[in-house]
């Protein structure tokens, strides 16, 4: 069965530092991959997505992610973190089939130190 693993439950970075959030997936075929961000008490906002093609995808708010098939990974990166980036980040994979339901990882909570 498809699954998504986010190994880091909680990460703290200093404002201005670079960020990498890890995501590994288990999926037989070429996956559709997503990163969502959830601010406290808010809904899920799509940061970026990968369907095919260029393995480095750009998203909103200065985020990017790289699909690495050999490592079954889709890590999220940002070169310089802002205090407003503090939130929870979810990696997700489309299950496939007719419904396209999303399978989410457990999330990584990002704290940003001044």
């Amino acid at each position, binding site marked *: 069965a498809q699954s998504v693993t986010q190994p880091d439950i909680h990460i703290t970075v200093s404002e201005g530092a670079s960020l990498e959030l890890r995501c590994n997936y288990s999926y037989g075929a070429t996956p*559709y991959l*997503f990163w*969502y961000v959830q601010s406290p008490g*808010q*809904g*899920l*906002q*799509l940061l970026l*997505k990968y*369907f095919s093609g260029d393995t480095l995808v750009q998203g909103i708010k200065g985020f990017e992610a790289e699909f690495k098939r050999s490592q079954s990974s889709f890590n999220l990166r940002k070169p310089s973190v802002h205090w407003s980036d503090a939130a929870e980040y*979810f990696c*997700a994979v*489309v*299950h496939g*089939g*007719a*419904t*396209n*339901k*999303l*399978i*989410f*990882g*457990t*999330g990584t909570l990002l704290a940003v130190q001044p």
Partner: protein
Amino acid sequence: EPEVTQTPSHQVTQMGQEVILRCVPISNHLYFYWYRQILGQKVEFLVSFYNNEISEKSEIFDDQFSVERPDGSNFTLKIRSTKLEDSAMYFCASMGFSNEQFFGPGTRLTVL
């Protein structure tokens, strides 16, 4: 920019009561979903709906749950007899042909 809306934003109910959570998907979308997120846990798929019928449901989506698209615009999730463990944030999502699901802001359900 079109968006998914959900009402109410917060619902408090007594155990055993029925609740209906409402969603207005993006108007030209054809696929509709409900997900839930228990506090501190990951987002879980509940049900998908296409062409006026359920296309897939999870193990969580038992006989106490039902979905409906009563008027071609709203998409509702009904919980017939709420339990304490139904307390969660419920997200509605809709999708067109882009394989991208757009999420609403969620309804926080508190069962007392």
